[in-house]
């Protein structure tokens, strides 16, 4: 009997090998080839040209701006994500599903529109444009606009990672802490935070990768002023449009390395702490 079941749940060996080969060929063509192209094209002019492109003043200014923007947008969304998840996951109130949908909204908006909305508000011809111009406050075509657009685009990452997990964990642990006399804040830092730390890290990781790599939204609000309002992805575009391909791919390879580092950390988190991340995406590893 057992041999019947053995063959029932699986394909003929040649079918299995064929499917694996086809999937590998597809992944190699769609994922690995572009990744390889970035590094090969970046090193086409040798290591000298590669490092020259990375250490050039405009590239360094772009790197600095990218780090600055992420250093503002990520903590903002970290706090907002934790506070929002606390309100949504630990309490019952009408309209909860709507609120979750609202938090997810930035993911379904085109990056270009994510930038456009801030131009319409704070641009020279925007709602608040004249008011801001009178006070010499620059938002669009300046750093604050880039921060705003990046914050919008990366808002959902932390909250959507925490909400399902905190909902699943319930509130008994917190209620016990409170009944034992712990203050609200102490309960949060000693009970809630340790329970969500890996999921929080996971959300921050993805939030940060997107914050540093965002292109469309930032492109609309930046104004592309070299050395001033160019982030790394925008610098890649400028170099590429100037036919300076080696430099464009060199800067791009830096961003690709960031992406690979993000994926590696994400994989480590999933393997080590999969049970403490939001349910669903870890099902694959449970099946092992």
């Amino acid at each position: 009997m057992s041999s019947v079941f053995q063959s029932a749940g699986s394909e003929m060996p040649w079918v299995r090998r064929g499917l694996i080969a086809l999937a590998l060929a597809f992944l190699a063509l769609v994922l690995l080839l572009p990744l390889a192209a970035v590094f090969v094209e970046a090193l086409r002019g040798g290591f000298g040209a590669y490092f020259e492109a990375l250490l050039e003043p405009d590239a360094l200014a772009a790197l600095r701006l990218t780090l600055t923007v992420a250093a503002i947008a990520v903590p903002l969304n970290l706090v907002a994500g934790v506070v929002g998840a606390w309100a949504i996951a630990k309490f019952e109130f009408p309209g909860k599903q709507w609120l979750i949908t609202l938090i997810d909204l930035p993911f379904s908006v085109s990056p270009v529109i994510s930038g456009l909305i801030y131009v319409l508000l704070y641009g020279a011809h925007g709602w608040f444009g004249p008011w801001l111009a009178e006070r010499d406050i620059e938002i669009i075509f300046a750093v604050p606009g880039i921060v705003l657009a990046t914050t919008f685009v990366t808002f959902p990452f932390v909250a959507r990672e925490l909400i399902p997990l905190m909902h699943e964990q319930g509130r008994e642990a917190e209620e016990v802490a409170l009944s034992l006399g712990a203050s609200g804040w102490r309960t949060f830092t000693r009970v809630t935070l340790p329970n969500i730390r890996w999921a929080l890290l996971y959300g921050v990781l993805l939030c940060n990768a997107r914050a540093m790599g965002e292109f469309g939204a930032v492109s609309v609000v930046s104004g592309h002023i070299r050395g001033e309002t160019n982030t790394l992805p925008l610098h890649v575009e400028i170099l590429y449009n100037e036919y300076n391909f080696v430099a464009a791919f060199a800067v791009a390879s830096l961003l690709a390395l960031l992406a690979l580092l993000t994926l590696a950390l994400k994989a480590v988190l999933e393997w080590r702490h999969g049970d403490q991340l939001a349910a669903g995406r870890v099902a694959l590893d449970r099946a092992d």
Partner: protein
Amino acid sequence: MAELAASAPLPAYHGGSVLPGFRRSMLFTLVYLGVIVMLPLAAVLVRGFDEGLGHFAKVALSDRALAAYKLSFGAAAVAALINAVFGLLVAWVLVRYRFPARRLLDALVDLPIALPTAVAGIALTAIYAGNGWVGQWLEPLGIKIAFTPTGVVIALVFIGLPFVVRTVEPVLADLGKAQEEVAATLGAGRWMTFRRVLLPAIAPALLTGVALAFARGVGEYGSVIFIAGNMPYTSEIAPLLIVIQLEQYDYVGAAAIAVVMLSVSFTLLLAINLLQGWSRRRMGMGARA
């Protein structure tokens, strides 16, 4: 701010829990959402109709805009269908089979989400341009990919793949083999089991993944503009048209096209929410059976 707190519809309401901080955290969330998300989105809707319905229709429904929607929606649909087939294949192989480097590949599936879109865009162009890695072999055969609508589809296949794989994977893993074994003992062949037992079970998740990939593809910008060619009427995507309107300081025109795209995005979001509800119910039933 004090006025807002006073008028918030949550007086003395504790959200059904003794836990502290409901009103404060809810108020903070609503204000943050209002400033970062709702107010800016409201600006688009209002500005899009700033110069009346006539002007809105003239820009949002111009021939050039219609051609751009057709390309954005058409290419996103084709790419989503390609990903429906190959995303399901990849998910199946990753969940069901064991082979070297499986975990490495599984982690790499998220590359399109982690890799900045501009980087993907120039990499794909380097591969598929006429003198590129793959392009140079296709060009003599008369096949052009970069700077044509085909290039747009290629970019959107790259962008959409993780959405299908990641939605289908957990459902396939949860499914177990019991039902398939029952089908086999009842005499069903492997292909028939796949079609009659497996496919119906994963259909909601697959549809959700395809819808997510489609929604992402419709609005995608960075990975597409390098490979698309950006010729009006043939290879110009809708998000690029918004950028062009903005560069000409036509805020109302840009907002008008954005309104059309946002309406489609929100309709898709609603459909995806319904699909996910269906998918969860389906999975729940499977677990009980």
